[in-house]
């Protein structure tokens, strides 16, 4: 219990110290990233009536989730993030347990499939090593609104049904396919749906609620949508599931279907 709380505090501290903002980037997309936005995103639970629509500035986003192979390279370069060295405070017992060894994937783990069983701290450290950061919820959700041919496919029933189908398929974590094997969306981003859950920077309702009214209330709203009454789009079940999933996490948690990708700021030319 103690360690969980402490991890939480650490997460808060990083939020408050504004470590989210990496150095501005030139207009040429960093390796592996594509430009997303600008656009408007409709949060499932608006923080206030004025925030029913949230505008999102342009940003860079990894075209694919981070893979086991890429994460292995990172762990070799920063051995403090090996599973046998990372403090449990920053990555729980499940951290990288699917790998054969602390510094080897083994025969059963595909190098090109998305890395899972990583904590928020580990994901954040990985992105920082690339001078990047985790995407914010609004950035991730904006990118995820796009289908192959529309920026906002939220009213395309086929697109919505396809996403929901993923969530009603059985969990087969052992057989995660390689990243980038489907079709990219309009921005050129692969696998936002249908492969793994992804960490976002501001994943925790309790983190964002630190400075807003009452924490308990915000928490309850987020995962406890028995009525769906306060939600903007009560039949967007996939959005509910993402919000519920994120709310269930602590920054040190790892799960077998949770991976991540990185984002970076854009240097706006005046």
């Amino acid at each position, binding site marked *: 219990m103690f360690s969980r709380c402490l991890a939480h505090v650490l997460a808060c501290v990083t939020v408050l110290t504004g470590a989210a903002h990496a150095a501005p980037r030139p207009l040429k997309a960093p390796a592996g990233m594509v430009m997303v936005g600008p656009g408007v995103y409709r949060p499932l639970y608006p923080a206030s009536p004025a925030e029913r629509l949230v505008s999102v500035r342009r940003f860079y986003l990894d075209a694919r989730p981070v893979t086991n192979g890429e994460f292995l390279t990172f762990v070799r370069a920063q051995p403090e993030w090996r599973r046998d060295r990372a403090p449990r405070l920053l990555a729980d017992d499940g951290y990288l347990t699917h790998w054969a060894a602390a510094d080897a994937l083994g025969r059963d783990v595909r190098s090109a499939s998305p890395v899972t069983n990583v904590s928020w701290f580990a994901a954040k450290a990985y992105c920082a090593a690339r001078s990047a950061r985790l995407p914010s919820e609004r950035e991730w959700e904006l990118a995820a609104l796009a289908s192959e041919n529309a920026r906002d496919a939220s009213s395309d029933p086929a697109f919505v049904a396809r996403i929901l189908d993923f969530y009603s398929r059985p*969990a087969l974590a052992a057989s995660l396919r390689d990243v980038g094997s489907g079709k990219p969306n309009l921005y050129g981003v692969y696998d936002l749906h249908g492969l793994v859950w992804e960490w976002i920077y501001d994943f925790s309702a309790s983190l964002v609620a630190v400075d807003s009214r009452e924490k308990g209330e915000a928490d309850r709203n987020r995962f*406890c949508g028995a009525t769906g009454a306060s939600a903007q789009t009560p039949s967007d*079940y996939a959005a509910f599931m993402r919000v519920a999933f994120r*709310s*269930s996490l602590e920054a040190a948690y790892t*799960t*077998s279907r949770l991976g991540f990708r990185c984002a970076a700021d854009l240097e706006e030319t005046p």
Partner: protein
Amino acid sequence: MSKDFRRTIGVLRASAIALALVASACEQKPDVGAMQRHFTEHPAPPPDVTSVPSDDRIMAVLTSPPNVPPPTNRTKPARVVVKLTVKEVVMPMADGVQYSYWTFGGTVPGSFIRVRQGDVVEFHLQNDATSTMPHNIDLHAVTGPGGGAASSFTAPGHASQFTFRALNPGLFVYHCATAPVPMHVANGMYGLILVEPPGGLPPVDREYYVMEGDFYTKGKYHAKGLQAFDMDKGIEERPTYVVFNGAEGSLLGDKSLKAYVGDSVRIFFGVGGPNLTSSFHVIGEVFDRVYMEGGTHYQENVQTTMVPAGGSAILDFRVQVPGAYALVDHSLFRAFNQGAVGTLKVSGPEDKLLYSGKQEDSLAEKEQAPQAPVLVDSAPPSTLTRDERIAAGKTLFASTCSACHQATGSGLPGSIPPLAGSDFLVKNDKERVIGVVLNGLSGPVKVNGTSFNSVMPTWNHLTNDELANVLTYVLNSWGNPGGEVAPAEIAKVRGSGAI
């Protein structure tokens, strides 16, 4: 349940001061003062729920449906530990139909929990590492905001723990309350927790656990393969399946509930929903007592009881006449076309005074039934190719056999065996199969591991050609092994030699 445990019938008493409202997920904390009710009409002393039980912990016995844990048989409240693991598992919803269920304990409904009023329940909810979703539990037996939902919200591969006091006796539904809640419930996330009143429930010979639930699949009823959840059908409340204990046929055949003549039977019945209210009925029985809505008071001599989604009832009855009793939702299309059927098989001696069986067959008395003629097919055999036989057989099957065996050859669970993939066709030689169709079949027969005990009429009025066609069609359809049946082979079995 052994008769050794029989005790004097406990009188159910409401606690003198009871929190009447069991908060459901996400409700604001109830104004406790306003909720207090004084049951002055029950002057009996309240059960002691104020003194804290000793620190010794008892592990709760959990059971899978249709089984029920034994009575607690405790005279005092205790600290009870419940450990429940949420698992997402693929299981059959019907013959050849799979579904990715989300479960409490690996079954639908989830494990049955049995505690006593006043118990302090230490609840451990584990979410299996293979899960895709976070889950939690809202127990309607919990007095407190959200019924435990907020405290038990658990990511995949993690666990959480909370403690509650079982203040109100009764039979309560529990369910997952993670958004989107209807989907978690529609995927099977519900079960029952019984809070026994002090003194327990009146002892009976057999206790069973049955829950009804509605399911929404992308494919139609009986469409084969792994079926995905259909949100639109859910929102429109158009279920594909309405079933007992999570799957069609889960209380049929070998899995029927069982009792002996003279037994007192109790069904702890609940409705998981997420949408439908059940009109629960046992064909050929009258419930002696129904504890309506799972509460304290009972109605007597009830035919059909209505149980709401997220509600329950305790049904007590004595079985006196041997036979098979169908459990149905008396909203009958659900029983006939969506799967809401189960059986209770009662064995033992008959008592003709209670039920005579058929005493008179008026048709048989009026007209002397003619001796069944030995039908001889004297038409000359045709010379069709195998493909022509299959095509001709298909038409005949549609008009003659499909009413029972279904156009897909799936049969009807519990009453008509399947022809699709039927091991009966493989295990038996051709003569036997031909004989069954020519002469009909009655009595117990096992097909693909399921026992059927019904009657198929004779088909000896069909010509050798027709029978050869229809059987060739059956052998070459729905993944059956293939092959051909010639009219001469029918003739041989018919024993007429008329070719």
